[in-house]
């Protein structure tokens, strides 16, 4: 009898330990949560004597980190009594950071401010009432007069503006290798048809016409192809429902997209975006499409000179349009010290702050009154284009669509990469749009 009970207990104990074994293996994926624990410990102590703000971002390396540090320097000189704490979580494009952030927001433990792409990427936070409308700050600081109306329109959600954009990046840029262009006596292709003609020649000589990287860089290519093939107005209409995803124009744009894959490298899925840029630098590939953060990679990391080591043009069919994305900072509801956060946002939106940040990061300021002379040549050109071109939001980088919609599009694209089935891709896109 006792023996029997002991056996039962033992069985229970074994059953009880099994899940530990099972969860131990899964723990690799959850270790980001320990980061949030340690950083929240910092913000808890902020309520004591000196004011302290913890700013959450995914800028942990290269020009991004340098830009953030420059911005913090401006902040420290203007608000010496507020201590800045860097709550950055490493991981490209913020995928890890967003998971940590969601957990903290759910637990009502928001950082003083967090980075997010301006636009519909913030929709989830807005709908959950987790970030404040900053319209009052735009009025107080007069930002509506110094930031382009087109930008303000595109980042306004439900009548409010919920973040302060610090920079603008251009998504629709095609990078080229000048030596290959010279050798074959080519210009940067202005349309995709031109590209296909060029591509045949290049491919016959063993040059990769267009280098591609892992899946998100292909989503990036996808959005620039849609913009180039549909035109700016129709492309912008995709996101507010005025353009149908079901149209014949869309089918033909998707067919163009499909055809591009005949002229790309076979190992794309194993390359980061830098590796894909590297193929252009080395002359293995003629062209690559990537946002203009690649300019910093060419000029700073590889010490190349524009027009000698690399050249650029708007991606085919998109001349006159500036497809943009913007990094911005928010004011979370229930921020530990609201006034300090507002001080941070004021610096982030100031001309001094934006110039300090953007020269380092390699992007252009969201404000139109920045000091052009301190920027390198590419960025000066980008500023001129930003001032004169039509605007279009980027999908891959959070401006055009909500996170849920973007994820559905990415899934449809990923399935397409396995099958190359254009009709199924279009069905998936139509279904994704209908669910919004």
């Amino acid at each position: 009898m006792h023996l029997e009970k002991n056996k039962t207990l033992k069985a229970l104990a074994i059953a009880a330990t099994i899940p530990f074994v099972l969860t131990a293996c899964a723990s690799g994926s959850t270790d980001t949560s320990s980061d949030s624990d340690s950083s929240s410990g910092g913000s808890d102590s902020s309520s004591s004597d000196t004011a302290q703000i913890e700013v959450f971002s995914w800028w942990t390396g290269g020009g991004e980190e340098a830009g953030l540090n420059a911005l913090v320097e401006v902040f420290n000189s203007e608000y010496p009594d507020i201590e800045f704490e860097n709550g950055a979580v490493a991981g490209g494009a913020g995928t890890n950071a967003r998971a940590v952030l969601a957990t903290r927001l759910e637990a009502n433990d928001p950082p003083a401010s967090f980075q997010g792409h301006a636009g519909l990427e913030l929709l989830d936070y807005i709908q959950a009432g987790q970030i404040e409308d900053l319209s009052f700050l735009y009025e107080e600081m007069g930002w509506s007069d110094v930031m382009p109306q087109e930008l303000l329109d595109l980042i306004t959600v439900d009548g409010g503006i919920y973040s302060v954009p610090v920079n603008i990046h251009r998504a629709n840029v095609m990078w080229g290798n000048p030596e290959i262009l010279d050798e074959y006596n080519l210009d940067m292709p202005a349309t995709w048809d031109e590209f296909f003609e060029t591509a045949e020649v290049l491919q016959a000589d063993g040059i990769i016409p267009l280098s591609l990287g892992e899946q998100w860089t292909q989503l990036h290519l996808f959005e620039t192809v849609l913009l180039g093939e549909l035109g700016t107005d129709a492309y912008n209409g995709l996101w507010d429902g005025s353009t149908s995803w079901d149209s014949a124009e869309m089918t033909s744009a998707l067919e163009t997209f499909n055809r591009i894959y005949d002229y790309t490298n076979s190992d794309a899925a194993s390359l980061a975006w830098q590796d894909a840029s590297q193929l252009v630098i080395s002359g293995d590939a003629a062209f690559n499409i990537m946002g203009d953060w690649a300019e910093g990679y060419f000029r700073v990391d590889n010490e190349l000179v524009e027009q000698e080591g690399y050249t650029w043009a708007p991606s085919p069919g998109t001349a006159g349009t500036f497809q943009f994305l913007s990094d911005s900072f928010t004011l979370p509801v229930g921020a530990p010290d609201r006034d300090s956060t507002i001080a941070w946002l004021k610096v982030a939106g100031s001309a001094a702050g934006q110039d300090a940040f953007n020269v380092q990061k390699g992007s252009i300021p969201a404000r139109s009154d920045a000091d052009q002379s301190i920027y390198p040549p590419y960025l000066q050109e980008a500023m001129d284009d930003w001032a004169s071109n039509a605007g279009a939001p980027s999908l891959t980088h959070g401006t055009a669509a909500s996170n849920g919609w973007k994820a559905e599009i990415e899934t449809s694209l990923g399935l397409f990469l396995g099958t190359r089935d254009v009709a199924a891709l279009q069905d998936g896109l139509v279904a994704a749009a209908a669910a919004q």
Partner: protein
Amino acid sequence: MIKSMRRHWLSIALISPSLILLGVFVYGFIGLNINISLTDEVGLNNNDANFIGFENYIKLLDDPRFHIDIFNTIVFSLTFIGVTLALGLGLAILIDSKIPAEGFFRSVYLLPMAVSFIVTGVVWRWLMNPATGERTSGLNLLFDVMGLDFLINQWHLTPTWGMLGIAVPAIWQMSGYTMALFLAGLRGIPEEVKEAARMDGATEFGIYRRVIMPMLKPVALSAVVILAHISLKVFDLIIAIAGKQIALDVPAIYMWQTTFDAYNFARGATLATYILISVALFVIPYLIVTNRKEKV
């Protein structure tokens, strides 16, 4: 009587902290997760979630991405478990055959176990570089230099069967551990039994087949359960080698993406429940068998 009662209470007291923690953090959260999977909770604003029954479960069965996940998991599991068991057993038999420097070889084979899947993944990402032509590198370059061109392949980027490429590093990492399990089993077989078989005129092969293998069955069962739950939940290895791409998608990656990138908590919870059920299919029969054996 009293003494045994006291011992009884003592054992309950000793395991109760663990039981309570498990009750809350494992079983409690499993319950919470199942609860979410039965709602339509999407987005960070979870006040307006409605109960919708098993709709999420049914919808997923129609999801082409989930079909790829299931296919990939099956390909990976069968390859990984099968090859790891065979390699592990083979190595164990070799090491058990009284070779010189046995300790050295044992450590060498067991060492991959000491690194995490992330480290393994990053290294194998270089080794399994699928680039062609002048940019060939990693194992493909080795094959090229050695004149074994027919072995050059696309590894994990092979269409449809890419998961076989992912299984290679997993096998490399876990076969040493499986060897250790089998070795312990082999060492547990008394020498007299083998002697008796030899006396009866059994060949060495016959001894392995008729005497040793049957006695290793419990070890093999444990090994299968351990390897199976690793393979059903594989996540970090794929992320480190290939990032997030649909061709190499598995339920755990889909769960991560739909939960934290798209904030579709209901679908994420449903995927988590499917993973739990698939692991349970292996673990629960194992527990029942073990428990029954102990009772006898």
